[in-house]
């Protein structure tokens, strides 16, 4: 509900000014004045204020608004809506003259393909999905590569050779985090024990925003002997950090540098975070849109491109930084191929 109150900035009367807005065709027509660009952004369930994935996209949008002077309009999904509602959201944005329109999350995949066909002169972008159309840009991430590094960090920081992985919701996207984490941990410390737990099963997506569930799962893992737990669980990660604090153990954050953004009381348990720079991707895309230089097709944000990484805030991984950076170099050079499932 608080999220709702926050989604209220920018672009007042979109309804009346739609008739004169001519869509710029992708890439070719350029040099639109910065303030002319009206960006539409459709969130996944949770929307702005979820302290996770959607908030990362919102951060990119906010940065674009303040630095590039674009106008923006946001809209979020409701729990349990059918694909037709997602279609309608994208269609409403496109027909109100927003261009480009950014869809946040793979749930928009099928609806976006349909709507992109209806609006060939509007450019679309989708985060975390490879939906194909001549006017869709895909902002995708190599989550497994960043997860490999924090997996290695977890293993190297575990005296008991026992680490844990907590996924928010049991979906293929989070399986990529798990695969990378396991590969990294096993590479760094062969024979390490890895516990895995998912908080909820789809269609229950509450596992991405329920700290209580994270805390219970975290306590269980620390009680079972894990030293370091990777919380790839969005807003639920806060609970895992609390559990780590209570048990005197360590945790790893996700998406943003959580040693900076988490509650002050638990910051010191976060040894590193797997950075997934959705904000950078969204900002880059909008920036290229203002310059008229965007292209359709996938843009992969991997280690090489700096789209994923591990964080060093707090200095808790300084002693193993050389090892981690060596792994990083091997992944970038292709010497190590990180599995995705």
């Amino acid at each position, binding site marked *: *509900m608080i*999220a*709702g*109150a926050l*989604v*209220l900035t920018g*672009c*007042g*009367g*979109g*309804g009346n000014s739609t008739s004169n807005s001519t869509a710029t065709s992708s890439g070719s027509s350029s040099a639109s004045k910065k303030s002319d660009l009206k960006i*539409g952004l459709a969130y996944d369930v949770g929307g702005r204020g979820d302290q996770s994935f959607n908030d990362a996209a919102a951060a990119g949008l906010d940065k674009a608004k303040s630095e590039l002077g674009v106008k923006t*309009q*946001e*809209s*979020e999904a*409701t*729990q*349990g*809506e*059918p*694909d*037709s*509602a997602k279609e*309608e*959201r994208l269609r*409403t*944005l496109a*027909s*109100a003259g927003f261009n480009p329109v950014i869809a946040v999350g*793979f*749930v928009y*995949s*099928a609806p976006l393909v349909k709507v992109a066909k209806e609006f060939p002169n509007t450019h679309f972008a989708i985060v*975390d*999905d*490879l*939906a*194909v159309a001549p006017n869709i840009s895909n902002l995708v991430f190599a989550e497994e590569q960043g997860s490999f590094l924090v997996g290695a960090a977890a293993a190297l920081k575990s005296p008991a050779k026992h680490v844990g992985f907590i996924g928010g919701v*049991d*979906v*293929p*996207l989070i399986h990529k985090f798990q695969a990378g984490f396991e590969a990294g941990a096993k590479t760094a410390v062969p024979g390490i024990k890895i516990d895995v737990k998912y908080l909820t*099963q*789809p*269609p*229950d997506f509450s596992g991405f925003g329920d700290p209580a569930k994270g805390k219970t799962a975290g306590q269980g893992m620390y009680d079972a002997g894990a030293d370091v737990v990777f919380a790839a669980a969005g807003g639920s990660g806060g609970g895992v950090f609390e559990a780590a604090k209570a048990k005197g153990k360590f945790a790893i954050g996700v998406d943003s540098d959580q040693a900076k953004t988490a509650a002050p009381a638990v910051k010191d348990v976060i040894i590193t975070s797997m950075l997934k720079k959705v904000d950078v991707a969204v900002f880059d895309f909008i920036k290229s849109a203002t310059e008229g230089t965007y292209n359709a097709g996938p843009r992969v944000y991997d280690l090489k491109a700096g789209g994923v990484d591990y964080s060093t805030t707090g200095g808790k991984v300084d002693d193993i930084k050389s090892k981690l950076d060596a792994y990083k170099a091997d992944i970038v050079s292709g010497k190590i191929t990180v599995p995705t499932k």
Partner: protein
Amino acid sequence: MKTALDPRRLLIGASAPVLALLFAVAVTSVVLATAGKDVWLTWQTLLQPQDFRRALVLTINQGTYIFLSALAVAIGFRMNLFNIGVDGQYRMGAFAGAVVGGAVTLPTGIHVVVIILVSMVVSALWAGIAGLLKVTRGVSEVISTIMLNAIATSLIAYMLRRVQVPVAGSNNIGTKPIPGSGRVPGLGLVPGTPAEIYGLVFLAIAAGIAYHVLLNRTRFGFDLRATGRSSTAAVASGVDVKRMVVVAMLISGAAAGLVGMPILLGEAYSYSITFPAGLGFTGIAVALLGRNSPIGMALAALLFGYLNVAANPLQILANVSTEVVAIIQGLILLSVVVAYEVVRRYRIAAEQRRVAREVQEDPVDSDGSGPSPAEVRA
């Protein structure tokens, strides 16, 4: 009781929902104004869709499955059973239907019927568990159906992993898509828009008629309503109440099996992790709003459908968050319940006044042809 067509009674009957709607509009306006929103723009956006024809089609489509969900809940209500489990039941059914539908090759038409029947049977069996628990172990169906919803979620997630096919280029996973022979094409009934109405809208209409006939024109329906009113009286008149509980849950579940069908066969063709959840709860609200009457529930379903459809334009064109739609829906429901109670009391009071007046005007009528004061008070 006087004749059903007494205009005064009709007026009073219609006044409840109208009053409730006005009250909900008034309170919502206050909420909007308090939040600093443009109240006028909000209602304008809500009441004047940019593309009326498309909004109409989408409203009918949403109304179709919301109505089916309300129907499933209402069958339980008439029997005094609170089937909160419609949500889990329709998802179990739709998942089973999607798996079978994607696995078999059958002629057009038969394929559709098979999928629908599989969904109805699986949903009915899932609901039947709650019925059996109630009659054999005395477990309240409220508790058991809530639990079964949670179990359905986990079970579907587990089984989806076994049968999943990846959706190309996406992080979504789903069942194997149902081939063309198992799909129900949309109908371009509304001219001037490419949007199509679900072909299964006729299934919803047929289900509504079947519900009316079953409950009001059959012995079974009479027994069901009698049991719902008073199970002890039903036992006294020879109804096997335990059997009725199980059968009512099975029928309610079978109706729940229809809820996912318009989406599965008319739009999604596959049960993926983005398949809509939570429609069972919308059904409870709509059944309450429609007072279990097929017409009332159809109107309420369309109203809820329309409000859902309006959520996007509200957000994008009027800068009002989607939660406002949920607030309006909640307020309508709340005020309808209150309004019905107010109108019911008013009706009783009016009846008492009328009878009192008649008794006064005709004081010699003491041989029982007029109602006694005791009767009036009752």
